């Protein structure tokens, strides 16, 4: 069961026309996710991780151009007709958006927003849909679930709203849940609760999950595999433990170093990554990270390294001089 490939992203690229020219938001990404497994996609703002998730969901902006294939359960979502896509969305393929302040409709009750999803995909009468909604709200840790059904989003806190959004996503027992920065808009104290809730429900329902985040700490204990994205490309991909134990891509190292640690002395300067990501409307010839890389050599600026396997086929990285090799000379 777990060996079945559920989602296969094949050479996906997303281009957005802008007044400054074509913006390549996602640049030839290949990823696979087996049923029941979890994948973390990590990268800084603007690296294309959200666009990639929108490409999977077929929720890209109207003007965006998508190429490649998104195979979900044997069907290519890119070419699937609208009606069949609609029947998959919310049913087998669910999403939790970043900001629960804006992802719930302000003028509809919590109950309406839950029940409409249930009734759209499952053949439930009103009473059964209501019962199921109450169960779902209880399952995601919302107190007094019966009363919530008649409440509106603005009557709930941010954390509670995100729990409602998760309940909606889980409502039809999806096979894949995409959580796009599910905790970024929430208070720090709530973040761990929401992440634990997602992890618990993922295990209980044996669904596959993609967590998109800019925080390596979020994926550390909660995913089977991690893909690190930079400038629209996957630059390192590995089983979570292998990545943290033996990262190969200098960008991953820099990203991890930028996480504040509890044992650093007060007032030490956080090792931020210097410079800024390249302008996506002006693609670089060489490695996109080279201008900011501590280890970059002349060759890095000339040619783009391909994503290649390291010791194990599961661990891939895109770097000519990966960490842990002799050739690496700190500049």
């Amino acid at each position, binding site marked *: 069961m777990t060996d079945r490939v559920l989602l296969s992203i094949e050479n996906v690229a997303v281009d957005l026309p802008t007044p400054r020219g074509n913006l390549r938001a996602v640049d030839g990404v290949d990823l696979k996710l087996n049923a029941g497994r979890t994948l973390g996609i990590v990268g800084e703002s603007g690296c294309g991780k959200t666009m990639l998730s929108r490409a999977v*969901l077929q*929720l890209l902006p109207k003007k965006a151009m998508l190429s490649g294939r998104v195979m979900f359960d044997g069907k290519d979502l890119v070419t699937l007709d609208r009606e069949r896509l*609609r*029947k*998959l*969305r*919310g*049913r087998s393929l*669910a*999403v939790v*958006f970043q*900001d629960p302040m*804006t*992802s*719930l*409709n*302000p*003028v*509809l009750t919590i109950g309406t927003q839950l029940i*409409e*999803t249930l009734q*759209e*995909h499952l053949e439930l009468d009103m009473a059964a849909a209501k019962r199921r909604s109450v169960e779902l709200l209880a399952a995601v840790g919302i107190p007094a679930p019966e009363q919530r059904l008649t409440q*509106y989003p*603005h*009557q709930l806190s941010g954390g509670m709203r995100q729990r409602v*959004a998760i309940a*909606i996503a889980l409502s039809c027992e999806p096979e894949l849940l995409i959580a796009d920065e599910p905790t970024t808009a929430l208070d720090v104290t709530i973040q761990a609760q929401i992440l634990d809730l997602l992890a618990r429900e993922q295990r209980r329902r044996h669904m596959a999950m993609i967590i998109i985040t800019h925080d390596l700490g979020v994926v550390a204990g909660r995913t089977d595999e991690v893909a690190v994205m930079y400038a629209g490309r996957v630059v390192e991909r590995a089983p979570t433990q292998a990545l943290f134990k033996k990262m190969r891509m200098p960008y991953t190292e820099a990203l991890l170093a930028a996480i504040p640690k509890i044992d650093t002395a007060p007032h030490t300067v956080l090792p931020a990554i210097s410079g800024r990501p390249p302008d996506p409307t002006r693609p670089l010839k060489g490695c996109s990270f080279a201008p900011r890389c501590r280890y970059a050599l002349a060759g890095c600026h000339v040619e783009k390294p391909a994503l290649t396997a390291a010791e194990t086929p599961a661990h891939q990285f895109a770097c000519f001089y990966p960490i842990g090799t002799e050739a690496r000379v700190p500049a």
Partner: protein
Amino acid sequence: MAFFLARRLLYLLPVLLAVSLLTFLIASLLPGDLAYTILGDQATPENLAALRRDMGLDQPIWWRYFGWLGNALQGDLGRSFRTGQTVLQAVTERLPVSLELMLLAQIGALAIGVPLAIACAVRSGSAFDRFMTGSAFAMLSVPTFLSAILLIYLFAVELGWLPATGYVPFAEDPLANLRFMVLPALTLALAEWPGIMRILRSDMIATLQEDYIAMARAKGLKASRILFVHALKPSSLTLITITGINIGRLIGGALIVETIFALPGIGRLLVSAILTRDLIILQGVVLLVGCGFVIMNFIVDMLYAVLDPRIRHGHA
């Protein structure tokens, strides 16, 4: 909700008072002497003075205002010196005609404007959208009397489908009544739909960018449900305001339309009161129409709270 309602009702009182004061002042400041108008140019100065005394016209203006307001509050708005009919009688006789006209016009304007707005918002920037937005703009600049005449020419004269003028009360023959009402209501609706369409279109375009619309699509809802339930409701707040303000425009439009189509409504009553210098009727009708407008807009404001729970709960 009860508190919200009570507070809004309290705001209403000074507005209504201001309406009555303005109505009275305007009527009093109009050129021409009321006593002279009534008695004609054969009247002797003694007769004029006697009539002014009888009508209280020799009293200071604020005294007359309070007297008039006091009577008005008791339902006595005076009596026409031409027909002898009381203002209230004249108005209640004609009000159903005007109300029906405005209601049908509003329904017609919404029936044209709302679907077009949604269709344009969904295909914003397309050729269809640009054509419709342009047409709406063109329609905005067509005066009511012109579209009335064109409609009469087309449907009454050329095609002969509908009567050009006349009226049958709804209670007498509903079908005939509607036949007489179609063209006047359509004339008014043609002036109103462009505003409705343009406002709703731009609000819909903004709403369709919202995260909760992406969420609704991600939930696999049908396109019709996303448009009519998830997008239309939060987009209609400005539309509601426009509909309320339109009532004022419709009253103005009714003056012209009722005159052209010979409908015995409030508009015609007002026009004939102006032409015959029937100041009592004029003053009373303007007061009632003004109050009606204020109260209609109050009701429209209440609709806000029905549409948006955040207003109901005092969050916005």
